């Protein structure tokens, strides 16, 4: 284990490269994944090492190449499908939710679909309504899928390796704004089990359950809260499906207060599931209602002055937590 720091994008790239070296069945395909290395340059260098037979540029055909991925996965390969923007999940939902997710069950357990749909999420890039959504709630709703949503380079690498080795279809969300974030990542091979939340910061006064980019926001808020004597525990579920209900509930039992923070639309979003799980599981321990902070229920606007108010910030989380703890 070294303590070198690499970026989130590098962590993703390393995970892919290592798994491709380990297992000849793994391949990547999607739009501009080869020479261009995706518009985010996350995959730069992979085609040089693995060639165009394993890093494959596709036409702009999200339903088509997603479906091809399903068929390849059913017949001995382990594809990693690249869906450039999470907003394009809309196009591939039939292949993801009606095919990939259901094949194993419908066949009575005979067929497997070991594949990963890598996609992105996150706003504040000034990309407007069709390039800024965080649609992980949709796929988290569908039995048969698994959904990973890492918040650090370390988690990204470990979870992606787990995803690639999993025998089920996994939807893997990377926040576009985190690609350049740095963090310590060991060089040794490691994986992170799905369904195990990580306590990113311990605290005893309030629980902040946060996902993806919102983990940093929660940590920032926790820092501010510490200044006024409130100890916030920050929990990152890391996968929304399976969800580590126990860790969320136990923390809330301990702190007796909780806020759930996520970058998807608030209504019928991930915050609803986690908040209701905590409200039910920690019912007899809670001193205040569980609060939800998702993205504003509006299509993501382009203008900076508008977009910036759609997503929870350190300041808004801090204020909500302070209010919940009865400090003013």
């Amino acid at each position: 284990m070294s303590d070198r720091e690499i970026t989130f994008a590098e962590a993703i790239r390393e995970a892919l490269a290592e798994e491709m070296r380990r297992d000849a069945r793994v391949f990547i395909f999607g739009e501009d994944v080869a020479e261009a290395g995706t518009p985010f340059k996350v995959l730069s260098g992979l085609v040089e090492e693995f060639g165009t037979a394993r890093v494959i540029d596709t036409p702009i055909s999200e339903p088509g190449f997603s479906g091809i991925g399903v068929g390849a996965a059913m017949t001995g390969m382990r594809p990693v499908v690249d869906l450039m923007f999470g907003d394009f999940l809309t196009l591939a939902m039939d292949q993801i939710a009606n095919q990939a997710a259901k094949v194993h069950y419908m066949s009575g357990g005979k067929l497997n679909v070991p594949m990963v749909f890598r996609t992105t999420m996150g706003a504040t890039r000034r990309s407007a309504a069709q390039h800024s959504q965080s649609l992980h709630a949709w796929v988290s709703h569908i039995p048969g899928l698994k959904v990973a949503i890492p918040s650090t380079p370390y988690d990204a690498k470990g979870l992606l390796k787990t995803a690639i080795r999993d025998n089920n279809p996994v939807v893997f969300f990377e926040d576009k704004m985190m690609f350049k974030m740095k963090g310590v990542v060991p060089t040794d091979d490691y994986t992170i089990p799905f369904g195990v939340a990580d306590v990113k910061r311990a605290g005893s006064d309030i629980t902040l359950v946060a996902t993806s980019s919102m983990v940093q926001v929660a940590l920032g808020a926790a820092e501010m809260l510490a200044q006024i004597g409130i100890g916030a525990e920050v929990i990152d579920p890391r996968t929304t499906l399976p969800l580590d209900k126990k860790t969320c509930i136990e923390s809330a039992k301990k702190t007796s207060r909780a806020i759930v923070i996520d970058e998807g639309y608030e209504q019928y979003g991930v915050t609803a599931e986690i908040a209701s799980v905590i409200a039910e599981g920690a019912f007899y321990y809670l001193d205040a209602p569980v609060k939800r902070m998702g993205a504003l229920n509006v299509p993501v606007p382009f203008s900076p002055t508008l977009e910036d108010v759609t997503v929870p910030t350190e300041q808004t989380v801090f204020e909500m937590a302070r209010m919940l703890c009865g400090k003013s």
Partner: protein
Amino acid sequence: MTEHIDLEQSLQMYQQMAKIRAFEEKVNELYKSAKMPGLAHLYSGEEAVAVGVCEALDRDDYITSTHRGHGHCLAKGARVDRMFAELLGKEAGYCRGKGGSMHIADPDSGNLGANAIVGGSMGIATGAAMSAKMRRSGQVAVCFFGDGALGQGLFYEVANMAALWKLPVIYVCENNLYGEYTHHTETAAGEFIARAQTFGMRAEIVDGQDVHAVFMAMQKLVERARRGEGPAFLQCDTYRYYGHHVGDINRAYYRAKEEEREWMTNRDPLKILSTRLIAQKLTDASVLERIEADVNAEVEAGVAFALDAPFPDAREVDEDVYA
């Protein structure tokens, strides 16, 4: 037409077609006597397509099937008894009762499963071909679908990639003239084969009621695909004798009784083959009758097995969600 097909193979095809016919008649009975949960889409009348196609395949070649899939399953090698068990929702069924009529899968015979989303398996079949190519396994993949399925944009996306990457996939379009209750002329502009030719793909039309014709056309396309010469599209003109599904009884508002009679009388795939074999004095009626008796017995035994078989235990409901 029959030059290259020996008698044994012809009789094998006759037997497969007769089995599908008998199977579907029994399914209809099961529905009418309320012994089958849900609905089923019968393949009767289209037997020569599935049989002609699958005869040209090896057991480890792949197929993907449709809502009207019983014929594909049987032709690719599925067993009658376990299919009935699946249709009746029994534990002994191919999918432990979880799939039913529209989802029978049998990987042992290369069947990657039927699909209840029209066109839904076009990506899967193309992906299986891509996988075969990557693994250099020599397998081909066949994607069955109906004329109506050409309405789905997915076809054009995957056909383009199959053509670009020369994948060993054959798109078999079962043109039975209708999608549900609507004639294809009301829903499709232009010629079907042009839809594949646009990608530079080899495309042919064949009489889907003549099993020899289907088989021979298919054989060539399979060989091409195995040689790495890329995908193909085979339009098989055919007809479904029954309604869209077993409950579609009054069909007069969308198709004429005379049309149905014409196909059943003059274009029946079993009759066409038997007439030819007898006319050429390659066999006689008694041989064919014996085959029919055999498959009828198999179907009777299969349905009896399935009717007797136990339902899955309710506790199995959350098994098989994840591998």
